[in-house]
């Protein structure tokens, strides 16, 4: 379970999150929607542990433990995974080298044995196959020369291999065509489990047709202003964010 309590975050003296509270239960898929500039991406980075943000108040508890005290790598080992809106290209770092380093680093932090090469290869090929990632992509440098869709599939592959407890998907639908959206969504749905929860950040209801949420939260002005079931996403699709924008103006 992830609990965010009264989170207040600045970036360069500008208030981005302003007393945000949110609870995502085990096995739950929570969607966060909201207009541009409402602080959605900031929330994802703060959960994952990016350093540029100044957390002034509040807590983020993963199963009761405050992750704000941890470095990004410790949070990852504790089970937090962020699927980036714009996955970074890392020239010179082979995809397989990276995957192995990441999997083993987390295992090491958790006090588990490193994977053997055959075990690692088996896991990667099996997971890659489901996401229609071919071996050629795995041979290339991480995300270098990948299309937008390929990068997002690579994020989901990492998610599958690292088996996190809590996944944040930051606008995973951006830059995806219909087929890629289907593959990525199927990949995410296959990972839904009793002991794993998701925070799906999106502008559009479209993604939520594929990854059907249990709860939907509207974010504006740095906090959650409305919560509901999956029907809330449909309402927003029809009415737009105008109501919340006027709140912002007020």
């Amino acid at each position, binding site marked *: 379970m992830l609990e965010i309590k009264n989170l207040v975050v600045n970036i360069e003296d500008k208030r981005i999150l302003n007393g945000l509270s949110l609870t995502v239960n085990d096995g739950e898929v929570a969607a966060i929607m909201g207009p541009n500039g409402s602080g959605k991406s900031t929330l994802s980075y703060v959960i994952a*542990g990016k*350093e540029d943000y100044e957390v002034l108040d509040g807590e983020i508890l993963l199963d009761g433990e405050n992750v704000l005290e941890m470095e990004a*790598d410790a949070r*990852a080992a504790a089970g937090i995974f962020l699927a980036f809106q714009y996955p970074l290209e*890392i*020239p*010179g770092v082979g995809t397989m080298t990276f995957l192995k380093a990441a999997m083993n*680093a987390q295992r090491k932090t958790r006090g588990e044995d490193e994977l053997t090469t055959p075990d690692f290869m088996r896991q990667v090929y099996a997971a890659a196959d489901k996401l229609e990632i071919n071996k050629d992509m795995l041979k290339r440098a991480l995300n270098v020369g990948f299309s937008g869709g390929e990068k997002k599939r690579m994020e989901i592959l990492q998610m599958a291999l690292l088996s996190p407890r809590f996944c944040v998907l930051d606008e995973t639908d951006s830059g995806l065509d219909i087929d890629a959206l289907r593959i990525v969504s199927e990949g995410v749905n296959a990972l839904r489990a009793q002991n794993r929860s998701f925070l799906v950040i999106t502008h559009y209801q479209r993604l939520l047709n594929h990854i059907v949420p249990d709860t939907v939260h509207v974010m504006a002005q740095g906090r959650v202003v409305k919560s509901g079931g999956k029907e809330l996403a449909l309402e927003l699709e029809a009415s737009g964010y105008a109501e919340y924008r006027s709140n912002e103006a007020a």
Partner: protein
Amino acid sequence: MADVTTLRTAAETGLSKLFEVQRLKLPGAAIAREEAFRYFEAAGLPHRRVEAFKYTDLRAAVREAAPPAEAPDAETARNAVKAARGFAGIEAARLTFVNGHLVAALSDLAGLPEGLEVVPFAQAMSEGHPLLDHLAPVEQTRENPIYQLNAAFMADGVVIQVAPGAKVERALHLRFVGTGNAPFSTATRVLVVAGDEAEVTILESHEGPDGIAYQPNDVLDVVIGDRARVLHSRLNIEGDAAIALSTISARLGAGSHIETVNVVTGAVLSRHQLYLHFAGDDATATVNGAAMIRDGQLADSTLLADHAAVGGISREQFKTVIDGDATGVFQGKIIVRQIAQKTDGKMKSDCLLLTDEGQMMNKPELEIFADDVACGHGATCGALDEDLLFYLMARGLPRAQAESLLVQAFLGEAIEAVSHEDAREAMIAEIEAWLARRG
């Protein structure tokens, strides 16, 4: 007369004294040595007011002239080589030099691959071997005090002839190992003459004791026949107090190719000089360097690519990683003579500063007299990308490991060019070892 003496440093005076003793002992005609030393003596140890040595002040760095190392006894040589790690374990024919002297007992002189002929340098000098006419294949080296100092003192080395058309698959490893408890100097000369359409791979490793201010000055002269290929990988893992000077001077025949990649982690001060003379049309060169230095170290790569024929292609890529208070230097000059139309030269120096204390000096120069050429140069300097670090850390890599991975990736670009797979792996292992020492 008195004025002249006062200007000379202790090291310069010491070198003159050493030369007086050595000139009669060293093999070959003394006259050429005399000429070389007179040049050096007139120029002196280069200092920062000499443009080519602006960032690498040898006059300040070389306080004393270290005596030339004697040939080691058999046991000393064996012990020194036992601990040597440069390109160790790689399948290759080995020629071993301990303190600058060829040790026949630790060399595969009898089991050389077909197409290779090797003559010990001292022997070649004494005999007046005809191949020695190929020494100093690039004119500009005559005005280089480091090169001329080597020419004055060169005591040992090898002359390597690759038969025309011979494709020598087995690499030749020139293993230079220093040993001793007090400062010493070495001056080795290796001459490679590759016949037309020949192909040869040469690996060079240089290492020695930590804490001893020894002074190696190594020269590799390479004459590459038409359509011949010379693939060269070099490892500077010298001891941490060494002042290591080295020069490669290569003359490229028509349609020939040279690949030379130098990896540096060793020496308190190193200067690696590259002189390439494109003598025949359509010759190509890949010249890369990867230096990793930390507190107090200075690593200088100085390059001159002289395009004197049509259609030459040169690619130079130098990468420097600086940790703590160290200094990197890259000086690169591409000359395109009027005759050298259709030359394509690209030179790049990238530096990664891991802390705020390091500094990198880049001095790229283009001197172009032909009108139909494509030449360019670039230099970058920066810190590790925080966004990339975050991406890796968000996947569970601790900061140090994420940094290491990015440093490896940065240097990897320069090392990817190495054709010899085992040599490339050995270079990567040196990078990993350097990063591991960083902790």
